[in-house]
Every structure is written in C-alpha cells, then in structure tokens.
C-alpha cells in the first residue's frame, strides 16, 4: 500500500456547483434511468437515496462532497461500460 491520505474537498475542477451542473447535464444526455444510476451509485459505496439523487440531478439539492464524488465516479464508470446500456436479458452485468 503506497497510497496516501486524500482531501475530502478534492472534487472536480470548478467546485461543487460546477460538479453538480456537469452531473445534471450527464443525466439529461444519458438514456439511463434513475434506478439504474442509483444501483451503480450504491455499488461504488454511495449512501444517498434515490430521491436525494433525483433532486441533486435536477440541481435542486446538494450532496455531501463524498457522495458527489462517488456520483461522479459512477457516471465515469458507466460511460466506460457501454455494454451496460445494451446488454441482453438474462446476463449478469
């Protein structure tokens, strides 16, 4: 283990409101349902519930920095998993 301690405030460039705007834009463009997004967010350790995520993605509420960072990671990872969107029924992700 060579990784050191990090700063909680180490968010995306532009600060928290910019991060929220980027997330809202991503959600609008992506054809991902809130349920799918929340499941992935949960899988990376996110704690916020679906309603809170929904409010954040419509720029109506804030998320604690860690939750916002985990949501950003969720979006990045979903982008990299294109098969996530169109894989067939009955297969495990």
């Amino acid at each position: 283990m060579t990784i050191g301690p990090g700063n909680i405030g180490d968010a995306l460039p532009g600060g928290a409101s910019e991060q929220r705007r980027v997330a809202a834009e991503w959600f609008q463009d992506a054809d991902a349902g809130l349920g799918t997004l929340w499941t992935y967010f949960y899988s990376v350790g996110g704690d916020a519930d679906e309603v809170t995520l929904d409010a954040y993605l419509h720029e109506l509420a804030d998320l604690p920095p860690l939750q916002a960072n985990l949501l950003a990671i969720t979006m990045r990872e979903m982008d990299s998993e294109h098969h996530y969107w169109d894989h067939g029924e009955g297969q495990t992700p």
Partner: protein
Amino acid sequence: MNSPESREEGGSMAETQPTETHAAQNPTPPGREDSLGYTLQDLVLESPDVEEFLTDFAVLAASELSTASNAVTCGVTVIRRKKGVAAASSDEKGRALDELQNSFGDGPCLTALRDKTMVHVPDTGAEARWPAYMNAVSRHGIGSILAISLDLAGEAAAVLNLYSARAHGFSGPDITAAQAFAEHAAKSLRLALRLAHLRHTRDDLAAAMQSRTSIDTAVGIIMAQNRCGRDAAFSVLTQASNHRNVKLRDVAAGVIASVSGESELPAYFDE
C-alpha cells in the same frame, strides 16, 4: 405434451383441432383459445430468456396460423427501450426475410411496428408501396405478407410478421385468426418481458452488493492503516481510482489483496 388418447376424450368437440389440447389435466375439453393460453403460459415459464421465448413463440405462431393449403413463415421483432432489438423467427427463411426488410429500412412490418397497426400485402407482385422491397421479397418466393403489431401497453413495441409463399395467402378468416392470436400472444410476451426485466434487475442488485462489499472492506482497511475516518478513507480510494483511471471496485480489490495476500485478486498496486 399431451398423450394420443387425450384427443379421444375431446372427441365431443365440434371442430377437430390440429393443435394440442390439455384434456389430460382438464376434464372438460378446453376451447381453442384456452388451449392456446396454456401453451403460451408454458412458453413463458419454460423459456430461460427473452430470445428463446421469442423463437418458441415464432414457431408456435407459424404452426398455429399455417393451414393445409398455406404454409406460413413467421418472424417476431421486439424493440425495448435502452435494450435494443430482439428478433426471432420460426425458421431460417423468416430470419432472412426480417433481415431483408431491416436492410431496406422500411416495409410493411416496420410500418406496422411504427404505427402500431396491421399491414396486409395481399400480393407482393401487385403492391405499389415499398417497390424495391417488394421486388426483393418476390425473388425470395413470397406472395403475401401480414404484419400485426402486438399491443404491449407501452412496455415495448413488437410486431408479428407472417409470410406466405402464395399471393392472397391470407383470407379474411385467416386474418381474424392471426389478430386473435396476436392479442393472446401480446399478453404472454408482456409477461416474458417483465420476468426478464425483474431477473435483470435482480442480477444488477446482486452485482452491486458484491461490489459494494469489496469497497466497504477496503475502506475499513484504509481507516485502520491510516487511522482516519470513513470519508477520508473513501477519498483515498476515489483519488486512486481517478488518477489511475481504474474502476473503484478494482482499486478496492487491490487494497484487499495487498492485505490478505490473496494472489488470485489482481494487484493493481504493484505496477
């Protein structure tokens, strides 16, 4: 499948049915629609996934809707939001015909699918619409086409494509029978799609819980090693993920491996 003697019990029925009945389980011989309902239910229960269901479904449609003088080839296409297109056919010919239409980008089946309606081409040689496609299907030996949209109550869009080698292969009663079949079939297709969706959601949740367990474990390890709080430990993980462009769950697996020495886990921290 029913035994041969079960048909004897059904002998009191007015019409002779070429299709199987479930008289063995049911003392009163069921009508044609009941029998079809049972068969479709079995298909839903026995198919492991949507693709297989659609194939069995197409085969059933072809056998139900073919008559002694008119052999019907059937294809079925389903469009699910976000999951793309699933298609199946009763035989190779049906598959080729559906693909042919997709390559043209338009035709009776795609029109039925788009407009949620029924499209009947009684004679491909005399049809004025879609001339290039009609030329092509004629060359494939198709004389008439019947495309019926399946009503899936907005869950998805689907169409049942019936091809006959004869011109005017679908009479008025044939069309009525096909519509009745489509109405029944749409319900079982909805069930099959809903089951598949639930199965898919369950698989996603199971995978999510597994991933989250690794990440929580790794966070605990970092908290112990760095004597820090949960948020700070998470931050260590997310930064490693960001900087190396490695998935968070893979970073977590690396952290766990570095402590437990489990060699089968990929050690992302040795690079």
